[in-house]
């Protein structure tokens, strides 16, 4: 694959990942004690879970057409973030005993249910209401496509090099070095962009209905620059080869 195309694909992937993070209901420490809406952990942890699942499902589609790899990554990430949000909601509803509600909006933009009445006084909401859940799934979709695209670009570049394409045998399993190198590259790119996006939103966000969501152009620009440089450094991997 042409190195320029690889850099382009990695840059687009980075912007998709960074944009996707803006959709995730990242609640952070306040949500961990059910005083803010969202999943009670940081962006890096949500990204780690959904990125790794997305990469495994994308890598499972290795050798298939591009759209299938992207779809694989998207489905994996969406499933993982969906499961995280659903199980989180079980804990908030049946464990903590709160109603999923957001203080950022008066009515849920999707279900039109009133939110205000259900928000405990002194908190910014709790649990993951419908709008946050839908937003999180969109975030997983974008992030998964981005991760899959970065994996595909790097894999296609590396598989052309004989030393990366020759499978190695470990404990009876044949492993292709190109897939592993591309996987770790895509995972690294995912973390870098997830954290930059997380800096942009200042740690916590509820989803596309949150006022902080308007910062997305800045975040996308920052991710674009960082991913471009990551892509440039990635060219060395292709040009150098392994042996």
């Amino acid at each position, binding site marked *: 694959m042409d190195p320029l195309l690889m850099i382009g694909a990695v840059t687009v992937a980075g912007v998709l990942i960074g944009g996707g993070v803006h959709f995730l209901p990242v609640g*952070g*420490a*306040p949500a961990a004690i059910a005083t803010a809406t969202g999943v009670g952990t*940081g*962006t*890096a*942890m949500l990204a*780690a879970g959904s990125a790794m699942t997305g990469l495994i499902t994308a890598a499972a589609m290795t050798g298939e057409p591009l759209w299938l790899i992207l779809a694989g990554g998207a489905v994996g990430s969406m499933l993982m973030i969906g499961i995280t949000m659903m199980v989180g909601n079980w804990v908030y509803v049946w464990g903590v005993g709160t109603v999923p509600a957001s203080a950022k909006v008066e009515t849920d933009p999707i279900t039109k249910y009133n939110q205000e009445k259900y928000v405990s006084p002194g908190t910014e909401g709790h649990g993951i209401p419908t709008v946050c859940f839908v937003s999180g799934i969109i975030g997983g979709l974008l992030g998964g496509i981005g991760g899959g695209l970065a994996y595909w670009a790097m894999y296609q570049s590396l598989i052309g090099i004989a*030393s*990366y394409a020759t499978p*190695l045998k*470990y404990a009876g399993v044949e*492993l*292709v*070095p190109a897939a*592993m*190198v591309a*996987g*770790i*590259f895509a*995972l*690294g*790119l*995912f*973390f*870098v962009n*997830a*954290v*930059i996006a*997380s*800096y*942009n939103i*200042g*740690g*916590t966000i509820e989803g596309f209905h949150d006022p902080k969501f308007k910062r997305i152009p*800045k*975040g996308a*620009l*920052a991710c674009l*620059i*960082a991913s471009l*440089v*990551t892509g440039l*450094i*990635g060219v*060395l*991997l*292709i*040009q*150098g*080869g*392994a*042996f």
Partner: protein
Amino acid sequence: MSVAAGGGGESGVDPKMTAGIGIIGGLIGVYLTPYHPVLGPLLASLGAVCAIIWGADAIARVASYGLGTGVPSIGYMSVAVGAIGVLAGLAGGVMLGNALFGPIMGVILSAILGGVIAIVGKKVIGMKIPVLVTGTMELTAASAISVLGFSAAIAGGIGMEAIATSVVTTGFIGLLFIMNTMAIQHPFNACLGPQENRVRTLKLAASTGFISMAVVGILGGLFTSKGAAITIIGAIAWFIAMRMFLKASKEEAASVAWSGMWPKEEEL
């Protein structure tokens, strides 16, 4: 979100000293790897522990200003940058025709990428942390050396071929990724607060570094002389470092004897 916000407080440790330990100790350890089958990897893993201590100090200096995203996030980012930089640097060494250029190139590339991310964070996103650029560059360089050191210890060499076949293709790089992140970010994440004492934080950093080293020895083959040496020395050093940390924590902890334990509910 971060409880540590405020930042820039006095530190009992000179940043130049930890940087020196990390860079010099780390790179010497990495570069000596190929010269002896047992001592080389042992020195490489000790070098990685030096880099982890440097990284833990750098993360404490940056994150004490309050990143808003929690301490682990910058740890994950820097090790991600370090892993990408190391792989690219090692491949670059192959491209230049001399494997000895690989490690140093990996560290420099990681620092450059870290610097770019920090500048983007400052200029585009508008983060207001004065030490963000230098701190992130130090942190990414330290992460790169720690990944390099442990990879060299597992592979027994510093060439791209050795590391690609025995660390990356086997998937150990994924484990190193998370383990080094934990070793670098955990000390400050656990010790942060108004009474944070950097010497105590770095004692914890030494213990997380050495326990990672013990795990790396297992990855390198527990029943080979190389792996056994790394595991045993790592485990003993972990025990000593953990003891030092526990002692320091007990000395600095407010005693519960002041007010006694909290009263039982029926006594209220």
